[in-house]
C-alpha cells in the first residue's frame, strides 16, 4: 500500500466530563484501503471516527491530513478535506424528501433558487449507486429503518469523497442490501478511496476489510490483518475467548406447556392467516426478507397494533387487541426494531428507562418504588454489562449497543416470560450478543418462551429451536433446526422469485399507500403499520 496515509489520528484522546473515552489512539487510513475498527459496545469507535468527521475535537493528540496537522472544527471542514461520514445513528430529516436528505447542505442552485431537477437527478444517481429504488420525493420518515440506512449511505456516497467513514452501516441491513453496499465499497476501493469501516458482524470484516484496528475501553489493543480468524479477533476485542457464538441450550422439558398460541392472525395490508404456537422453553425464530411483515406480526401480538382477524392466546388466555398493558400483564415483553424511536426515552436516565414497564406494577398506592427500582436496575445493568458511567446517566449518551441492552433489560426486570424480539442484537457486539443469548437461555430454562425476528440468518439458525419463514405477510414454511440451512431458509423466503424481484416487491410494499387508506391491497400496509407515526391509527377506541 502507498506509504503516505490520507488521514491519521495521531495519539488522540477524548474526555467527556471527567470520563476518558478515548486514550492515546493512533489510526491511519490509506487510499484504496479499507481500515476496520473493531471493539465492544462502548469501546469508543464512534467517538473516534467523530473526531475524524469534525463532530468532536480531540482533547489530546493531532489529526494529520496529507501529512499536515489540521483542526476540524465543523463537519463542513471535514467535508472540504474530502472526508464523508455515515454515522451510526441515522441523521435524516423525517419531514423532508429523500432527494433533499441526500443533498442536504449541498443543494444545487440555479440563480439563487434550488434547482429541483438537478436535486432529483443527483439524488437518483446516488441512490442508484446502492441500488435503492424509491421515489425521491417520498418523505424519509415514511421509509423503513433499512431504507433509511440506505438513504444515509447514498447521502455520504453523493459527496465523492477521498475518505469515507462507515459506522455500522450494515447493522440495519439484511444480507442482500449489505452485498449491494459491499459492491459499492469494492468499486470505491478500486478508485482509490480510503475507507474506515465499523461493524459488529465479524464475517463482514474479512469480506471487505484490509487491516483491523482493535479498541478496548477506548485504548488501542492491536492492529491485525483482516484475514485474522474470527476467534482471534473476538479474543482481542473482548479480552477473553468466546468458544460458542451461538450458545443455544434448549432445556429438556417433558411435554412442555403451550405458552403462546397465535391462530389465523391477520391484519389487512400486513400479514394474513398466521398461525403458530410456542411452548415453554422454546425459541421460535422468524426469518424473512425485509418487508416480509415480521415486524407487523410481532407488533400485533404485543398489542402495539390492532389486527383484523384471528386470536392470540397466552397460557390459554386470550389477549385483547391492541392492548399493550394487558399483553405485558400476561407476561409478554416486546423489544422493538427501532430502539431510538420506539424503545427508549433518550433524554431520561438508564434507571428510568429500565423501569417503565414495571413503574405501575411495583408501585404502592400509586407511589413509585424508587429504592426497589434502583436496586433492580443496578442488578440488570450489571447482568447485561451495560457500559455506563452511572445509572442516572441519560440513556442517549450510551453507545448504540448498550442502548439496545437497556431496552432488553426492561423486560428482564418485568420478568416477562414471553419475549417478542425484533432484531434483538442489532448493533450489539459479539460479547454482548452472547450475553443476550445466554439471557434467552436463562428465560427458556425458566420455562419462558421466545419469538425472535431477525434478519441475521446465522443468529436465526444458531439460536432457534424452530424456524418460521415469512414471505409477503404469510408463513412460507417451517423448518426444524435439523433441516434449517441458509439455503433452505432463503429458498422459502424468496420462492419462485429471484431476489431482485423480491426487492422490487419490497419497494412496492414500502412506497404504496398507508393502511389507513380504504383502497389498500393486502401488502401495502406493511410500512404504514410499522411506521411509528401511523401506529396509533390502529387503535381505534
Amino acid at each position, binding site marked *: 500500500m502507498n506509504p503516505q496515509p490520507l488521514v491519521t489520528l495521531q495519539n488522540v484522546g477524548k474526555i467527556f466530563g471527567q470520563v476518558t473515552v478515548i486514550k492515546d489512539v493512533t489510526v491511519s487510513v490509506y487510499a484504496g484501503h479499507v481500515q476496520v475498527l473493531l471493539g465492544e459496545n462502548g469501546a469508543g469507535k464512534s467517538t473516534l471516527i467523530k473526531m475524524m468527521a469534525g*463532530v468532536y475535537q480531540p482533547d489530546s493528540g493531532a489529526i494529520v491530513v496529507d501529512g499536515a496537522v489540521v483542526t476540524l472544527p*465543523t*463537519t*463542513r471542514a471535514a*467535508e472540504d478535506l474530502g472526508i464523508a*461520514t455515515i*454515522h451510526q445513528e441515522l*441523521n*435524516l*430529516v*423525517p*419531514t*423532508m424528501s429523500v432527494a*433533499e436528505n441526500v443533498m*442536504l*447542505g*449541498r*443543494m444545487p*442552485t440555479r440563480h*439563487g*433558487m*434550488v434547482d429541483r431537477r438537478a436535486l432529483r437527478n443527483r439524488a437518483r444517481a446516488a441512490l442508484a449507486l446502492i441500488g435503492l*429504488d*424509491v*421515489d425521491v*420525493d*417520498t*418523505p424519509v420518515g415514511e421509509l423503513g429503518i433499512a431504507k433509511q440506512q440506505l438513504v444515509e449511505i447514498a*447521502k455520504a456516497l453523493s459527496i465523492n469523497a477521498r475518505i469515507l467513514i462507515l459506522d455500522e452501516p450494515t447493522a440495519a441491513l439484511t444480507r442482500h442490501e449489505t452485498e449491494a453496499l459491499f459492491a459499492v465499497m469494492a468499486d470505491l476501493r478500486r478508485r482509490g478511496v480510503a475507507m474506515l469501516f465499523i461493524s459488529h458482524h465479524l464475517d463482514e470484516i474479512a469480506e471487505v476489510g484490509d487491516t483491523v484496528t482493535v479498541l478496548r475501553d477506548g485504548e488501542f489493543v492491536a492492529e491485525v490483518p483482516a484475514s485474522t480468524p474470527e476467534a482471534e479477533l473476538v479474543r482481542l476485542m473482548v479480552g477473553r475467548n468466546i468458544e460458542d457464538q451461538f450458545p443455544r441450550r434448549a432445556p429438556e422439558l417433558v411435554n412442555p406447556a403451550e405458552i403462546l398460541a397465535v391462530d389465523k392472525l391477520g391484519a389487512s395490508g400486513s400479514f394474513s392467516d398466521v398461525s403458530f404456537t410456542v411452548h415453554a422453553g422454546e425459541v421460535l425464530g422468524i426469518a424473512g426478507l425485509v418487508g416480509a411483515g415480521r415486524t407487523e406480526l410481532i407488533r400485533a401480538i404485543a398489542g402495539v397494533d390492532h389486527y383484523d382477524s384471528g386470536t392470540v392466546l397466552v397460557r390459554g388466555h386470550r389477549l385483547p387487541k391492541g392492548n399493550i398493558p394487558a399483553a405485558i400483564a400476561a407476561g409478554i415483553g416486546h423489544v422493538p426494531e427501532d430502539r431510538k424511536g420506539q424503545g427508549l426515552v433518550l433524554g431520561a436516565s438508564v434507571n428510568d428507562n429500565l423501569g417503565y414497564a414495571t413503574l405501575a406494577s411495583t408501585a404502592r398506592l400509586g407511589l413509585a418504588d424508587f429504592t426497589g427500582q434502583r436496586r433492580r436496575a443496578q442488578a440488570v445493568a450489571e447482568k447485561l454489562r451495560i457500559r455506563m458511567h452511572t445509572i442516572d446517566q441519560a440513556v442517549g449518551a450510551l453507545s448504540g449497543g448498550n442502548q439496545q441492552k437497556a431496552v432488553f433489560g426492561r423486560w428482564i426486570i418485568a420478568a416477562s416470560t414471553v419475549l417478542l424480539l425484533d432484531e434483538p442484537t442489532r448493533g450489539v457486539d459479539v460479547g454482548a450478543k452472547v450475553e443476550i443469548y445466554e439471557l434467552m437461555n436463562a428465560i427458556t430454562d425458566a420455562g419462558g418462551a421466545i419469538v425472535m425476528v431477525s434478519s441475521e440468518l446465522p443468529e436465526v439458525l444458531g439460536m432457534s429451536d424452530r424456524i418460521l419463514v415469512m414471505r409477503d405477510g404469510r408463513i412460507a414454511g417451517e423448518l426444524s433446526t435439523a433441516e434449517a440451512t441458509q439455503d433452505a431458509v432463503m429458498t422459502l423466503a424468496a420462492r419462485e422469485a429471484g431476489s*431482485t*424481484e423480491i426487492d*422490487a*416487491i419490497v*419497494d*412496492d410494499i414500502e*412506497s*404504496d*399507500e*398507508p393502511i*389507513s387508506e380504504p383502497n389498500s391491497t393486502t401488502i*401495502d400496509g406493511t410500512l404504514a403499520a410499522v411506521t411509528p*407515526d*401511523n401506529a*396509533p*391509527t390502529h387503535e381505534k377506541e
Partner: protein
Amino acid sequence: MTPMSTTTLAPARRRVDYKKFLANNGALVGLVVLCLALFIATPDFLTGQNLLNIGIQVSTVAVLAFGMTFVIVAGGIDLSVGAVAALAAMVSSWLFVAAGLPGWLTLLGGLATGLLAGMVNGLANAYGKLPSFIATLAMLSVARGLTLVISDGRPIKTAPEVSFLGGNLGPVPMPIVVLLLSAVVASFVLNRTVIGRSMYAVGGNAEAARLSGLPVKRILVTVFALAGLFAALAGLLLAGRLDSAQPQAAAGYELDAIAAVVIGGASLSGGLGKISGTFVGALVLVVIRNGLNLLNVTSFWQQVVIGLVIALAVGVDVLRRKTRNS
C-alpha cells in the same frame, strides 16, 4: 426490475401528492364547511364587498403569520410579532411626525425596525442560546414598552406613503395587494430558496442539519429576522388602514398568528408547515369573526363559538389525516 419499478412509482406518486395536498391545505376543508354554513346562515356573507372586507381584515394577521411560519417550520416560536408590528409602525410614524423624514424613508425605517428586532431575537436564540419562547417573550415586552415610550401612549399620524398601504389602488384595496404579494414572496422563500429548505432541516432535525454542514445558527438568525420584517410590514399595513400608529396596535395578535400557522397544518415541534396552509388558517380565524358580526351574535357568546369553530376546523383536518398530534 424496470417494469416493476415503473408500475410501483405510480402509486408512490399518488401517495406523495395526496399527503402534499393535505399538508398544503391544512384546515381547508374546515374553512369550506365554515363558509358554506355562513352562506346558508346569512345573505350578507357571500357578497363581493364582504369578501373584499374579509380580504382586508385577514391581511394583518396573515402577513404576521407568514413570518411566523418561517419560525415554526424552523422549530421555534415568536411571541414578539404583535409588539414588533406596533413598534415598527410607531417608529415609522415618529420618523415622519417628529423627525420629519420623507414618507418613503419612514416606510423603510419601519421595515428596518422590524428586521432589527427580529435579528435580535435570532441572535439571542441562536448565539445567546435562549429558548425562542423566552427570547421573543422578552422582545414582546421590550418592543411594546418602547412603542409606548416613543408615543407617550398616544396614537401618531402615519406618513401618506404608509396610509397608502391601507388605502386603495384603483378598485383594489392595497392591503389585499400587499397580502398576496407577501404570500408569493414567503412561499417562494420557503419552497425555492436554499435558506427556505434549510429551515425545514433545522426544524425537522437540527442535529442532522448540523452534521450536514448547514450553518444552523445563521439560519436561525435569518428566520427570526424574516419574521420581524413580515411583522413590520403587517404593522405598517394596520397603521395605514387607521392612518395612525396605535400604541396598542396588534396586541395579542401573536396568538392569532401562531394559531393560523398551526391550523394551517404546521407542528410546533418544527419541520412542517406551508404558506398556503397558514393562509387558510388565517382565513378561518377572520371568517369566523366576520360571520359572527354579520349574525350579530352577542359578544359573550361570540368567544364561545369562536373557540368551538377553531377546534372543529382543525378537528376535521385531523380526522382526514388520521395522524397523531401530541
